[in-house]
């Protein structure tokens, strides 16, 4: 656990430093978050609080940062890097745009179906965190938190230094997406967490793949249960125009790297 705390602290320091220099309006909030986190961690250590509390602090910071760093990142970096990501995507597919290629599959039925998959990430994430942080012994909880901290922290560095809004805002598609009720819920949820931002890398893919890899090791049946979901989430992020292909690939790479680091850290 101390390693997970150190990673989150280091991430907060980087965020504070970047915002202090390039987006001062967002600096106080994150500085406050850094102080609060440091205090909680120190108190937890000093008073020997149960590990569940320290896990709660780590998860709370990681989940809060998803919304708070969104817009300040664009200010700090002076605009979005969508053009760069689109260029990499074209290079990956020999001059063709994956987002535009996926357009012909974006029927109303498919959009609705993949919205269900995309939205399912949220219960999967929170249920995994609940089971990972509370329902496990320390020997499993600590590596779980370390991997989660690594996945989110590296992804947030991507959000900070390569801010992008995704294909949905970068491309001029022939047709807007049309889905049903679930797609409408997805749209409202995205708007509620700061709009389109944080395209690179895909945390939908990175976090779900990490959770799946972790379970494949510790609880293989649960891991296997979510393998199809992770694959479908990867497809849904492209079909629903939230991510570039490079975001998805980097998300998967991030999950694999986090899993390997955790295994190595465990010795």
């Amino acid at each position: 656990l101390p390693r997970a705390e150190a990673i989150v602290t280091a991430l907060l320091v980087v965020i504070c430093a970047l915002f202090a220099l390039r987006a001062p309006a967002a600096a106080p909030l994150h500085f406050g978050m850094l102080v609060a986190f440091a205090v909680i961690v120190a108190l937890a250590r000093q008073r020997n609080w149960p590990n569940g509390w320290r896990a709660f602090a780590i998860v709370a910071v990681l989940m809060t940062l998803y919304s708070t760093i969104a817009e300040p990142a664009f200010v700090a970096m002076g605009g979005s890097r969508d053009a760069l990501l689109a260029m990499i995507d074209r290079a990956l597919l020999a001059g063709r745009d994956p987002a535009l290629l996926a357009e012909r599959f974006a029927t109303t039925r498919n959009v609705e179906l993949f919205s269900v998959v995309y939205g399912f990430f949220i219960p999967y994430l929170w249920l995994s965190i609940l089971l990972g942080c509370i329902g496990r012994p320390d020997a499993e909880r600590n590596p779980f938190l370390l991997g989660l901290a690594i996945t989110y922290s590296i992804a947030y560095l991507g959000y900070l230094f390569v801010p992008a809004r995704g294909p949905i805002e970068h491309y001029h598609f022939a047709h807007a997406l049309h889905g049903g009720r679930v797609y409408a819920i997805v749209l409202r949820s995205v708007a509620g967490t700061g709009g389109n931002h944080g395209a690179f890398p895909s945390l939908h893919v990175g976090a779900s793949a990490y959770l799946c890899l972790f379970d494949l090791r510790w609880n293989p049946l649960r891991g296997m249960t979510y393998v199809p979901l992770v694959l479908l989430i990867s497809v849904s992020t492209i079909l629903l125009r939230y991510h570039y292909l490079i975001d998805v690939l980097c998300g998967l790479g991030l999950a694999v790297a986090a899993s390997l680091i955790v295994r190595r850290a465990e010795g």
Partner: protein
Amino acid sequence: MTLFRALAIAGTRLFFGRIEVEGRVPPDGPLLLVSNHTNGLVDGLMIAAAVGRRVSLTAKSTLKKNPLLALIMWLADVVPFYRRQDAVDMRKNTDSLVEIRKRLREGGAICIFPEGVSHSDASMREFRSGAARVALDAKGLGLRIVPVGLHYEAKQRFRSAALVRFGEPLDVDAFDRDAHALTLELERRVAALATQFRSVREALWLRWVAELLASRGEDPRPLDRDERAWAPRARLLAELRDDYEHADRERVAAVVRELRAYRRELRRYGVAPGEVYLSLHPLQALFFTIRELELLVIGGVIAAIGAVQHGLAFLADRLLTKKLSVDLDHWASNAIFYGFAIFPLVWLAGLAIVKMLTNWRWTLLYALAIPFTLVYTILWSDRIARAIRRARTFFTFVLHRDVQRDLQGRGRGLMDAIESERRHGRRTPEGGRS
């Protein structure tokens, strides 16, 4: 990896819920594996799957009469032996021995079951001298013999546990040309690896004792971390058998009577021995519900697809196995070997139907899903069955708390009595036998 080894791994891993391997075999050089033989053709598969190199099996020649087994024997590169009781031309054994010698000279590995027949006896049958003669015939080649002990939790039961124990290798060149002496030595070494009992009844209650002691009187682990390690239980069983040798039989008989009564009581309430100490704490029950309900609902979707893809094959395999198995030591063999034919046939039929009803994309997806859903459905069914059993135990104990208290008390009493008898037997130099 040969096709046969891949089939051996797939067949044994799917049939048995847990396979553990202890010890190692030399990775190269001529090698002779000698093993106990209690589970028909599965024994050969277990060894082929556990040894990290190509192994040629030996088997009775009459197996080739079955076309499916003949095909698998061809894949496995089996060396046939011609037995007197099979009324075949025994002179052909000369060719088999020449073939074995050739393979050993080429640095190959051969597996022989010196008992000559698979059986369900409580202890090993007398070793025949064939393996020793083969070994002595290869003297000077640097041949090593590895004794193997095969243990099965319940050899005919789907998803039960198994253990393969490899002993220390013997250097054949260090032995005189005395086939009888070498046979006895091999028998002694294999017997040390494969637990022996005086009777099936003795084996049964000693297994009950091992199961009871393995519970340690503690809250059972959550199902996702329930490793169900079989090796420690098998070791405990061997220790118990040794302790029983030195125990006071009359005193033990009283404990066994109480144990039988305890087991009857457990059966009456449908409670497994390991779950007597199940915690009834609401928070633990809540986590159990979340974990298992998640798998039941979400995993149920994949398992339902698996049931469509493999349900018919499972059913047909089970029916055929039931019809063709005349004894316990051929049940698993039949299930696995007929499965090798039934499952691919059902898959091909499924693919043909999907292709007829849809297009090639769905057919490809269906084909790609087959291995995943097969493994998943087996694991899921296994887990859900255990979850249902644990939930039933939980509700039984919630409704009858006095029953749990009583069972816990009797279980602890039995554990104390058993440990006391073990200590008593060890203290008495000549054993407490009366």
